[in-house]
């Protein structure tokens, strides 16, 4: 590496050392985000407030309600006496689910007739609906099978057990904890945010203060200027990455299984892609503020489309295609495959090819725009 590159990198470090606020932000921001996302993003819905409208008032009807509550998905916060009460409870957000057991539930059961129960669900929040109905449906299905089996055995010509059993076995995250999924992804999101923003602002600042013109008339080459300016940020990127992994381990007990060396090596592709993008933004922005706005504007599709928050598989085709162009999409897969599934290079090589292609395209774009001439 040449001397002028080091001179510029050294100057960046000196400036960074004086800019305590930015420095603090680079450390505090990842930790804050970690806590925020780690606790707040929780897609497994539990303890849904619910009410019971028990018209049957039998031992069996009470038993159904109790066994629903025992799943941990429903908290019965009260009983109601008519549908108007249910409506009031749902509208006022006091309950999201109402279990309605019509009269004759117990007697139908006793006589071997189909007994009915109704689950009223607040559909304004689709995530809750899915969890609520699925749990209740599987519970009721299980109950029905038990009753059927009992009857078959009583009549003397039954199976010894269920005809088909499915035993789900979840690998890599057996307790299905969201944090395990979110924390490694957060590494990618935070790097996207800070790397793009810091580079674009670092160059825009020189433009704003007029020092860029002073550098343009100097013998510094574009490559030296760019590499020298982003080198310190690469280091910061790695520090942030390490910090998030450590804090995720300590606070959320997120395991890190895979080859860390491979992950850190591949992270370089991702960090470099974001820095190149930041550089490209800086050639468009005239002020630091514009650079910051562009960075934020870029962050949003990253969070929404990369598969960080919403499953990539659930996205419509055009969104999927678009997200393939985002470095974060591929880095998320790499980081999850390596840290959660102990994947090796062969497992991530498609993503590596994608990431390299994006990086090459961004470098080309940035250097085309980043000319040392003023006119």
């Amino acid at each position, binding site marked *: 590496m040449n001397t002028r590159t080091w001179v510029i990198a050294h100057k960046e470090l000196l400036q960074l050392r004086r800019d305590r606020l930015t420095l603090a932000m680079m450390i505090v921001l990842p930790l804050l985000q970690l806590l925020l996302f780690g606790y707040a993003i929780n897609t497994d819905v539990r303890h849904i407030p619910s009410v019971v409208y028990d018209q049957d008032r039998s031992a069996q009807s009470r038993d159904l309600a109790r066994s629903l509550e025992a799943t941990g998905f429903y908290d019965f916060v009260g009983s109601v006496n008519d549908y108007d009460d249910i409506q009031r409870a749902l509208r006022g957000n006091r309950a999201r689910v109402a279990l309605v057991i019509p009269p004759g539930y117990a007697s139908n059961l006793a006589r071997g007739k189909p007994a009915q129960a109704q689950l009223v669900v607040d559909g304004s929040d689709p995530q809750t609906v899915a969890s609520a109905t699925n749990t209740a449906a599987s519970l009721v299905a299980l109950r029905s099978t038990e009753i059927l089996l009992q009857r078959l055995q009583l009549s003397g010509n039954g199976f010894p057990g269920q005809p088909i059993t499915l035993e789900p076995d979840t690998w890599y995250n057996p307790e299905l904890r969201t944090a395990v999924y979110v924390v490694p992804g957060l590494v990618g999101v935070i790097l996207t945010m800070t790397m793009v923003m810091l580079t674009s602002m670092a160059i825009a600042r020189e433009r704003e203060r*007029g*020092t860029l013109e002073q550098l343009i008339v100097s013998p510094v080459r574009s490559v030296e200027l760019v590499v020298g300016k982003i080198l310190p940020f690469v280091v910061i990127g790695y520090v942030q990455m390490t910090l998030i992994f450590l804090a995720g381990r300590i606070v959320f007990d997120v395991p890190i299984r895979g080859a860390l060396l491979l992950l850190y090596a591949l992270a370089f592709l991702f960090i470099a892609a974001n820095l190149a993008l930041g550089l490209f933004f800086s050639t468009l922005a005239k002020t630091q503020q514009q650079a910051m706005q562009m960075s934020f504007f870029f962050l949003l599709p990253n969070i929404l489309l990369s598969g960080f928050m919403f499953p990539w598989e659930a996205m419509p085709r055009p969104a999927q295609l678009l997200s393939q162009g985002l470095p974060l999409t591929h880095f998320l897969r790499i980081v999850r495959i390596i840290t959660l599934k102990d994947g090796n290079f062969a497992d991530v090589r498609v993503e590596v090819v994608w990431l390299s292609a994006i990086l090459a395209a961004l470098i080309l774009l940035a250097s085309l725009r980043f000319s040392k001439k003023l006119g």
Partner: protein
Amino acid sequence: MADSAEFIIETEHLSRRFGELLAVNDLSLSVRRGEIFGVLGPNGAGKSTTIRMLCGILDPTSGRGSVIGFDIAKQAEQIKQRIGYMTQRFSLYEDLTVSENLGFYAGIYGVPWRTRRARVAQVMELSGLTARSKQLAGTLSGGWKQRVALASATIHQPPLLFLDEPTAGVDPVSRREFWEQIHRLSAEGTTVLLTTHYMDEAERCHRLSFIFHGELLDVGTPDQIVERRNLSVAELEVDRATEAAVLLRARPEVDEVAHYGHLLRLATHDGTDAKTLAESLLLSAKFSVSQARSTRATVEDAFVSMVRSEHQNREQEGRT
């Protein structure tokens, strides 16, 4: 090209166009090695554009130029290593100290690592900055910032120095000290090309050029430029000075009437004697002239006269 040992900058028919605007038009000038060369012209005349082309950071639309023997369009990088350039706004890193700023530019201009510290110390000593070496550049006043900027631009001892309005917004004492530095550098053999709006500074240059609407109007020593305008100047003390000025300005041979405290300064061209003209005009109009004396024309008189007559020429061209 002519004797390149004599001229450090030479341009031939240099032009630069920004869309519709012709910022520099057919500019041919030569700057001698070792001289202090001033570029004068109103705002927007194309001074900064010219400097940028000479530094190799802006390509000319047409024409050519050479700086220190290198072509400005094709050999920009060679030029950049050999010049110093100070922008209009003294672009320093405000969050770095004086010595850090100087050290940075020393590194950028390839002062070897081993001698960098010594060179920075030497430049600080020469510019009187040693006591402030640890101060952040952002906390310096205008005059001190300008010193640091000049020290940065000369840290690598360039043979040619470009200064774009180096003294804008700096107090008179600092300006005077700044000019001492410029003459010291010139005595050491550095060629200095600078732009300025201050006429007292223009008179301190070895040679001057006037640029107006991107065109070169005149080049020469300050004396030559003043002489070529062939101006006659008088200073008058007269009652009802404002009315007197209106009367005088109406005459076609009058270039300029300006107030200086109680005095009116009158400049005329075309061989008309300013003092004679003023006395005969004002006395016949019943003004009482208590004092009138002829005086030497200055660069400022020449500059104003040149800009005025150019304006008139352009207006006439516009009408026809």
